[in-house]
C-alpha cells in the first residue's frame, strides 16, 4: 500500500542528501532557527501526509502539523541520532494527530448528526456519497473508529519510502505487531467501507 505516492506529492526531503539533512539537524540542535525552517520546508508535505492519513481532514491535519513541528523544535536537543530525524519527526506528527482525534471525533459526530437530519429530506446512494466531500467524511469516520495503534499503523505503513522497520521503530513495537495492527485495521475498514468497495 502506498498512500500519497504516485505523483501526489514529491517528498522534498528526498532531494537532499542524508548528510545534508544531518547537517541541518545538527545546526538546529545548536539553536540555528534558519536550519530548522529549512527542515520544515523539506518535511512539511511528508508531515501533512501522516496527519491527513490519521485525521482525514486537511484543516485538522494542518493544525496537528503545526503543533507537531513546535514540539519537534522544542525537543530537538533530545534527538540523539540526527540520521533518525525523519522517523523521529513523523512519530511526533503521528502522535500529535492521534491525540487530536478526540476533537476530530466530536466534529465528525456533529457532522453525522447534521447528516442524519438532512437525510429526512434526501438519502445519498454510495455512488453519490463517493464525491470528494462525502468520501472524506466516510473515511474519516471509519479511521476515527480504529484504535490509536491501528490508525497509526495503517497510516505509517502506507507511506511511500518508509520501511516496515522504520514504522515499527516509530511505533515502538515489532514489525510483526505492526503487520498485525495493519491487518486488523484493514479488516475493520473492509466492513465499514463495504458499500464503497463494491
Amino acid at each position, binding site marked *: 500500500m502506498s498512500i500519497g505516492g504516485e505523483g501526489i506529492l514529491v517528498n522534498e526531503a528526498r532531494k537532499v542528501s542524508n548528510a545534508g539533512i544531518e547537517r541541518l539537524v545538527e545546526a538546529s540542535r545548536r539553536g540555528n532557527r534558519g536550519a530548522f525552517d529549512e527542515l520544515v520546508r523539506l518535511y*512539511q508535505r511528508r508531515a501533512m*501526509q501522516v496527519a491527513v492519513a490519521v485525521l482525514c481532514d486537511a484543516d485538522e491535519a494542518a493544525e496537528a502539523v503545526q503543533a507537531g513541528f513546535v514540539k519537534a523544535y522544542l525537543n530537538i536537543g533530545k534527538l540523539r541520532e540526527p540520521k533518525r530525524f525523519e522517523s523521529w519527526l513523523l512519530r511526533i506528527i503521528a502522535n500529535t494527530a492521534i491525540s487530536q482525534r478526540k476533537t476530530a471525533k466530536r466534529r465528525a459526530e456533529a457532522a453525522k448528526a447534521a447528516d442524519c437530519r438532512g437525510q429526512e429530506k434526501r438519502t445519498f446512494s454510495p455512488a453519490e456519497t463517493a464525491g470528494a466531500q462525502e468520501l472524506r467524511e466516510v473515511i474519516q469516520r471509519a479511521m476515527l473508529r480504529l484504535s490509536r495503534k491501528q490508525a497509526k499503523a495503517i497510516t505509517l505503513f502506507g507511506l511511500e519510502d518508509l520501511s516496515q522497520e522504520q514504522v515499527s521503530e516509530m511505533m515502538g513495537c515489532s514489525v510483526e505487531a505492526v503487520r498485525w495492527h495493519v491487518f486488523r485495521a484493514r479488516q475493520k475498514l473492509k466492513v465499514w467501507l463495504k458499500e464503497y468497495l463494491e
Partner: protein
Amino acid sequence: MKKQEEKIDILLRRNMAEQLAGVDWDKLSTAISGRLDKAQQRKTSAIGLPTVLKIAAPVAAAAAVVFVMVMIKPERTDDTQWGEGRTATVKLTGSRGSASVAIIDPADRAHAQVDIAGKNGTPAKCYVRIIDSSTGQKEDGIRPSWFMISKAEPAHADNGANQDVMAIIYLF
C-alpha cells in the same frame, strides 16, 4: 480478499490526494514559522527562570524548615536520655500524644520507625528520617541530628488538631 485490500488502499489514496490537493504549502509554512516564533519567545523568556529557582528553592526550603522547627518545636521530658542505642521520650507541645523515639546513628540507618502513642494509648507508627547535621554543637557528647517525622500516623493516633505529627521537625 486481496482485491478488497487494494480497493481500501485506493480509497485511502484517493482521499489523501483530494485532501492534499487544496493545501496551500506557503501558507502552511508561514503558519508553522509563526508558531515557532511564539515557541521561541516563550523558550527565551523561560531560560532565566530555572537559574533563579535553583538558588531560591533551597533557600526557601531551608527557611521553611527553620520556621516550622521554631513554631512547633516539641519539648523534651526530664527523663530524656541522649545517647546511641538509648531511647528518649519526647513530649509534643499542646498534644496528648507522645512519641517513643529510638535514637539511631544516622550513619547506620537513614530511616527509623517510631511508635507514637495515640490518645487512646494505642501505639501507632510513623516513619522518621534522620539527617545528620554534621556541623552542630555536641550536646552531652552526642552530635545533634535533625529528626523529621515524614509520614502521618494513622487517624487513631490523634495528637490534637494543632499538632500534626507529620509536620514535626525535632532537633536533638
